């Protein structure tokens, strides 16, 4: 099976304070099969270069949005990116078929615990449910939507020594996604990708 080229679009507006996302981004940046883009660095005044972004999408098979979960959604630049780049005639609508058959993944960190993101938790919805606007966007533009790869309780991950395990897992997931070591159907219905590591036939590195 062909290997997937991965485009990682990273949105974090306060990287000085980042404890998990920045290390995740750095890990991914070192992998040669990933094009890692720091959106806030490239467009600090939100003037997104639509042509360049569309070309990037065309050049890759799997698009990852990596971000800290803000108000149950993405940081604003990722919304701006969607608004501008997923144009009528390019991503949807008449002749808008450029992205069909590609895959989409959200890799995010959430402050609340996993228990909070349940019907009986204080956030009332699962993380997958809260990301439904993105899932439907993927549907609309013909992309296969993978369940989100999430780290819960991210504000205490470093203190509790969970960071390095998470980074190793992240690295393994990226390799598996690149090598296409999985069947999409096995994963499609999961709440979070982290529940399906066995389906990704993950080989641990390091």
């Amino acid at each position, binding site marked *: 099976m062909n290997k997937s080229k991965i485009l990682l679009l990273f949105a974090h507006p306060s990287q000085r304070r980042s404890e998990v996302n920045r290390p995740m981004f750095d890990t991914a940046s070192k992998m040669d099969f990933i094009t890692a883009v720091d959106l806030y660095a490239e467009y600090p005044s939100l003037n997104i270069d639509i042509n360049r972004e569309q070309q990037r999408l065309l050049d890759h098979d799997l698009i990852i949005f990596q971000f800290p979960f803000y108000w149950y959604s993405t940081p604003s630049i990722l919304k701006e990116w969607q608004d501008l780049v997923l*144009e009528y005639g390019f991503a949807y609508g008449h002749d808008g078929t450029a992205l069909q058959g590609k895959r989409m993944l959200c890799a995010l960190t959430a402050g609340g615990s996993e228990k909070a993101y349940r019907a009986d938790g204080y956030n009332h919805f699962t993380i997958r449910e809260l990301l439904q606007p993105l899932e439907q966007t993927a549907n609309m533009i013909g992309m296969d939507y993978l369940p989100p790869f999430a780290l819960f309780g991210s504000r205490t991950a470093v203190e509790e020594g969970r960071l390095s395990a998470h980074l190793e897992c992240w690295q393994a997931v990226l390799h598996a996604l690149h090598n296409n070591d999985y069947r999409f159907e096995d994963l499609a219905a999961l709440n979070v990708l982290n529940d399906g590591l066995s389906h990704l036939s993950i080989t641990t590195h390091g």
Partner: protein
Amino acid sequence: MTIYFIQAVIYLLAAVIAVPLAKKLGLGSVLGYLLAGVVIGPIAGLVGQETTTIQHFAEFGVVMMLFLVGLELEPKMLWQMRNRLLGLGGLQVLITTVLIAAIALIMKQPWTVALAIGLIFSLSSTAIVLQTFNEKGLTKTEGGQNAFSVLLMQDIAVIPMLALLPLLALPELMQAAESMKDAAAHHEELSLVADLPGWAYALTLIASIGGVILLGHWGSQPLFRYVASSGLREIFVATALLLVVGIAALMSLVGLSPALGTFLAGVVLANSDFRHELESNIEPFKGLLLGLFFITVGAGVDFGIFADSWLFILTATLVVMLLKAGVLAGLAMMFGIRDSNRWLFSLSLAQAGEFGFVLLSFTVQQHVLPTPLAAQLQLVVALSMFLTPLLFILYQQVILPRYQQQANDQPYDTIEEQGNVVIAGSGRFGQIVNRLLLANDVETVVLDLEVSQIENMRRVNIKSYFGDATRPELLHTAGIESASLLVLAIDNRDEAVELTKYVRHSFPKVKILARAFDRGHSYELREAGASYIVAETFHSALELGAEAMRQLDFHPFEVEQKKAAFNRIEAESNDHLYQQWLKGSEGERFDHDYRKLFIQLQSGIQQAMKNDRADGHTKHERGWTPPPKGYTDDFEH
């Protein structure tokens, strides 16, 4: 007269040949000077007796060096260093003295001689170590900083040592000297304090030190301003020299170490606006004199004595260096200096120093040490100084790479150390740049040629220095080598271009961010090698234009988008215009093609602005555009 010229030629020639060669071979300039001295002295016999005289003169280089060291040290920093100074430095001197004296005692030396030897070898070479740190960029490392505190403490310790040593005089040597005493009495050094009673002496000391501090703090500023306003560079150089030599003279007159006096003056002047200008003026003198000093050390090596007792000299050198390094390593462990820094700290200070020579000749004069022993010890001091550059090479080639390997293996070490920024020109442009950087804790060094401008900045508590940024020495003392950026905001457009060329050529690693006056100037700067150029009026004019549009009831967000589009097109076409400009001949650069392109640029911008964004997706302007009316029909069938 002729003989002086010939001597000068010999010394200069030796330095000119040996030093670049030594540097090329990676040995460092100090070893180059030392070897040059050995060649013209004991090997070729080109220079002889006068080396001792020259050495006394060249010791003034050490004095100047301490002045420069003081300039780098603000009083606040000195106070922060007090623990390391007294703890690390004090213990080093104490323990090394005791151990070496003990060894001398075991070798059946009388205790007075043993103690004198211990004191002499407890000192390290400020000249070699600081010079090498500078050359190899080790000054700012933890090991380098700690080594510096120890050196400073040693330099301070020399003063009580000079007071203590005469008390150790040997009776039999005293007697031998008795007959010569009358003759010697006439050669007493010129001194203001020789015949004063104790209390008056103490008062004189306090008065002179206080005088230096007061004068440095309040007197220097008006003096320098007065001299600087004359605009004569050589007079400023003369003033700087006068200051250093004057303080050295005063200190000698009252029986204090000139090195310590000028160091103190340096510390007082460290806050001065003229600090960098002073540094750049004294620096060349210091360099030459220190070089001369090293040459005389090399020339003073007596192979006769070495041949007679080479075994003793070699063993003694090795024992001294091992012991000193051992003590330093132990102290480093105690004070939590780790890894490569511990090595640097221990290896760099393992030699005996130039103050060793001073103390040796002093002890012989004071009949503490017998002359033959002193001659042998002199060789030990010289030999240990010879070996020091080799230890530095060992550190850089063998030890450091190992630790760097380790450091490289650690993951996620993303926060890189921020370099300094040199800002040339602190007028209406440079000052804003400086304020933004300062507010974000970026270390800046601001240079400006207008004394009044510096005064203005001082009134709002922003520090800048007097000096002409287009002079290489001044850029050097402002730290251009270690800076990561140079912000170029000087008022003279031609000099800005020249400076860009110079910095691009001499310090290719330094990025140059330049202010241009207009388009032509920006191209000149670009051609000269500036990495980023901004025309001084462009952004503010654009901002004003945007405000005009807002006043005309354009929607603010739309105005923002138009502005971004304008910026983008401008940047895109700038490259074409630049290429065209490059092709044009000198003086006729605004030729026909260029003008045509500029007109094209303007019409391109107009075109882009006219396109209604809801209508077409033109190349130049796209934003958030609603899909066409009725587009949902496609989905609902």
